[in-house]
């Protein structure tokens, strides 16, 4: 011990800055030297350091009585019964090398990299597939385990090409890392390596199949998470290949995730191929705005450019997946950007002007029209801060006609439970019956669909769907196409009604496409009748949900962006479009003055008189609320383009030019203003459930219109200004949607 103290003083300066985890898992490099000490250490020692589970993981105990105790390297851990040896090691803070095991996929147990020694077992065991038994003594750093790993590694590398210098996975490759840590320093294989023909999986996933180590993660991902049975394994022995059997593209909206889960460079990103090395990239943890789910992402940038987008763990929202739109829309951030303020001249062409001139003209025109002729429309990608500023500004100008596109002309913003997902996304996993009303979650909110798929797989949940013919990647009963079916269910005449009323945790999801219908109140009241009769809303379970379409919607409704009159467009003279590209301006009078403030030269600019450039979600700090009512913030990853400014700053400046100064000039200021209107938007990363139920609603007198539901998203790959500008998304819609 005394020696140890002296030694520790001696080595302290050396490892002064090294990571605390560096020495926690000691890799035994010299078995001869280690064997005696390792064997003698088997009994737990009193001064074992407290260990934290790998990655700070929380352990889910279904039943606290079912805990068992196992020993990992002599350290006792309590784990729920049924966990595998690998999970036990993870709880004990020991990361076991693995290739085929993935915590979100089923267990295959075919790579054998996770071999560990278990006392009294004659052979090393594959820890990922072996259930941990009470009192098991697991040893992860013994000569046996080391030798086993080394052997597996040698076999894996036998047929693995020496591609690392030209491989996109290089630098973030599990095979590379683990062969450095656990492999031998030389191989004994002198024959030819095998080679495999590359497969064409579409415009997103690049394949170099020679690199594949047959871990089958991609196969399991495709069938278990994405719900497409496209990939499979063919042949056996050294003829084993991953493929689609007949040449076929991978038509899943989650296909990009196979790039992440592939532990080697067999599946890599096609748009990112040879663009950058991952160690050159700077990661910024932020959130996605291409749909209302608010997936957690990491934007990897190099210098002023976004190079790629990766998912980031959030168990409550996107687990560890993202949709292809989220992952590959980034090239749209570099194309068709508006970078200078512009004014349309008499000849119909835009002329670049200074900010000062542009704002002066906008302020002047705004003062010339009557207050009730001013309208403001926030776009689907707007952050809460700028919507707050827009509303405050227009209110000061005397107009109250401000809304967010996609919420319809008479949104119901009074009861929060009427527009958010009350069950919460992770709560969907408890459901056993789903009724989807006018929503196609597969294209509207891919991550929500993935949860439903997971639930259907895990507990055979039943899904009923009312809406136009569409594709589902799980078993689904198509009940009908229009509100009449809904009425039948509400009146108990439809067989699906008994499914709902007999269910333990029924879930009804209404699509936000319904917001645009004239009879939306009637539809909601029918849905509420079903909910009431089917016992969907109980004190312990709220299964009545609305699935929103756009990132801005929830915050817009929270902030009360509701137009005063539903046909204000018809008489408007001054229109402020804040990134709104999808409003129907046909009815707008011809002499109306349109200001378009946004980051892309998209549909909105065609009629604009003044263009004010703004920054995109990757360039600004903004608050977005997702469909389940969880406020999250984006962080800037890259500088903005040209002379563009954050939306709220532009509006703040305009208010000053117009002589109606808004009382905030910092982000903190505008956020405290938001706190007064919607305090939940300041509860970042916390889901704020709605407090009042639907029962408070007034009686609805509207008539149900039997017209069938429309699909809200026509083209999954192109839904907003960024994705419409993206080349990759255009390729996807061309080849995957066959349009």
């Amino acid at each position, binding site marked *: 011990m005394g020696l140890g103290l002296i030694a520790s003083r001696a080595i302290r300066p050396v490892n002064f800055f090294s990571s605390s985890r560096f020495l926690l898992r000691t890799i035994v490099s010299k078995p001869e030297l280690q064997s005696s000490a390792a064997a003698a250490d088997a009994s737990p020692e009193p001064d074992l350091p407290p260990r934290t589970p790998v990655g700070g993981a929380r352990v889910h105990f279904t039943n606290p009585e079912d805990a068992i105790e196992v020993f990992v390297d002599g350290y006792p851990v309590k784990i729920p019964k049924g966990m595998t040896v690998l999970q036990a090691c993870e709880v004990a803070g020991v990361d076991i090398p693995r290739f085929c095991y993935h915590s979100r996929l089923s267990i295959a147990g075919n790579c054998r990299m996770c071999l560990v020694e278990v006392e009294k077992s004659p052979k090393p065991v594959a820890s990922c597939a072996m259930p941990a038994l009470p009192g098991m003594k697991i040893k992860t750093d013994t000569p046996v385990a080391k030798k086993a790993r080394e052997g597996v590694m040698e076999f894996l590398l036998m047929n693995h090409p020496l591609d690392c210098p030209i491989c996109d996975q290089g630098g973030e490759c599990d095979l590379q890392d683990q062969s450095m840590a656990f492999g031998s320093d030389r191989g004994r294989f002198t024959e030819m390596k095998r080679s495999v023909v590359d497969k064409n999986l579409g415009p997103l996933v690049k394949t170099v199949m020679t690199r594949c180590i047959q871990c089958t993660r991609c196969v399991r991902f495709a069938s278990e998470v994405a719900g497409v049975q496209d990939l499979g394994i063919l042949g056996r022995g050294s003829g084993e290949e991953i493929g689609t059997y007949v040449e076929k593209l991978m038509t899943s909206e989650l296909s990009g995730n196979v790039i992440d889960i592939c532990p080697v460079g067999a599946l890599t990103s096609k748009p990112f191929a040879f663009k950058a090395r991952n160690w050159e990239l700077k990661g910024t943890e932020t959130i996605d705005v291409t749909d209302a789910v608010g997936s957690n992402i990491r934007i990897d940038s190099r210098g002023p450019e976004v190079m790629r987008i990766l998912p980031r763990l959030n168990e409550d929202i996107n687990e560890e997946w993202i949709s292809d739109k989220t992952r590959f829309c980034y090239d749209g951030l570099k194309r068709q950007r508006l970078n200078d303020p512009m004014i349309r001249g008499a000849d119909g062409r835009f002329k670049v002007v200074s900010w000062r001139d542009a704002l002066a003209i906008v302020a002047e025109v705004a003062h010339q029209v009557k207050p009730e002729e001013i309208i403001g429309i926030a776009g689907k990608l707007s952050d809460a801060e700028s919507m707050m500023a827009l509303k405050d500004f227009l209110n000061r100008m005397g107009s109250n006609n401000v809304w967010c596109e996609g919420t319809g002309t008479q949104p119901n913003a009074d009861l929060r439970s009427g527009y958010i997902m009350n069950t919460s996304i992770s709560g969907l996993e408890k459901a056993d019956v789903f009724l989807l009303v006018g929503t196609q979650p597969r294209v509207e909110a891919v991550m929500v669909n993935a949860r439903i798929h997971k639930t259907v797989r895990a507990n055979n949940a039943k899904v009923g769907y009312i809406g136009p013919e569409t594709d589902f990647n799980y078993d689904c009963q198509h009940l009908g196409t229009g509100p009449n079916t809904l009425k039948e269910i509400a009146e108990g005449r439809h067989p699906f009604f008994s499914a709902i009323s007999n269910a333990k945790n029924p879930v009804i999801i209404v699509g936000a496409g319904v917001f645009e219908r004239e009879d939306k109140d009637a539809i909601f009241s029918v849905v509420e009748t079903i909910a009431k009769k089917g016992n969907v809303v109980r004190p312990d379970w709220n299964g009545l949900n609305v699935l929103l379409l756009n990132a801005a919607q929830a915050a817009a409704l929270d902030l009360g962006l509701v137009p005063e009159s539903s046909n204000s467009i018809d008489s408007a003279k001054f229109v402020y479009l804040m990134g709104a590209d999808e409003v129907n301006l046909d009815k707008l009078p011809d002499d109306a003055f349109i200001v378009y403030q946004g980051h892309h030269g998209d549909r909105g600019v065609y009629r604009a008189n003044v263009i004010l450039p703004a920054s995109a979600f990757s360039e600004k700090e903004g608050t977005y609320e997702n469909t389940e009512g969880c406020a999250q913030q984006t962080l800037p*990853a890259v500088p903005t383009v040209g002379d563009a400014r954050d939306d709220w700053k532009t509006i703040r400046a305009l208010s000053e030019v117009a002589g109606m100064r808004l009382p905030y000039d910092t982000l903190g200021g505008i956020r405290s203003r938001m706190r007064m209107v919607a305090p939940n938007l300041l509860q970042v990363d916390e889901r704020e459930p709605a407090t009042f139920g639907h029962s408070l609603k007034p009686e609805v007198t509207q008539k149900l219109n039997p017209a069938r539901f429309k699909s809200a998203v026509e083209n999954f790959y192109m839904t907003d200004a960024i994705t419409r500008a993206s080349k990759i998304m255009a390729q996807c819609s061309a080849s995957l949607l066959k349009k």
Partner: protein
Amino acid sequence: MAHALQRIWNHGRAMRATVCPLSRPFSSDALVQLQPGEIGKVSGIPEEHLRRRVVIYSPARTATQQGSGKLGKWKINFMSTQKWENPLMGWTSTGDPYANVGDAGFNFDSEVAAKEFAERHGWEYVVKKHNTPLLKVKSYAENFKWKGLPKTDGN
């Protein structure tokens, strides 16, 4: 041997916790009490960089990798976006002295350490929630479990 190494390591950690000024402030019974922002001032950092807004976060695991070696650290994001491509060489130029500080080897062992560091430099900080994985029971036998009759396609 492994345990001896671990003991040494722990000892080293304990020492570091008390001595290293980077991750802990001076102990509270010291004669001089530090005011927030003072360290920044005495080290001659320009005024505008003493009033920065920073984000303290713990980086998530890279989705492409399974290893956990880089997990559990805390970092400071300076939200530095003053960058441009230099017209002469095409390299990235920056107007922000902190542009590369946050990415490089600027790690803290704990959230508290990162917060204290930011306080001493007078930065206004927000701490991002650290999302952790949830370990659920999984078993190999699950693959062969009877889940009822296979359903037919469609209705």
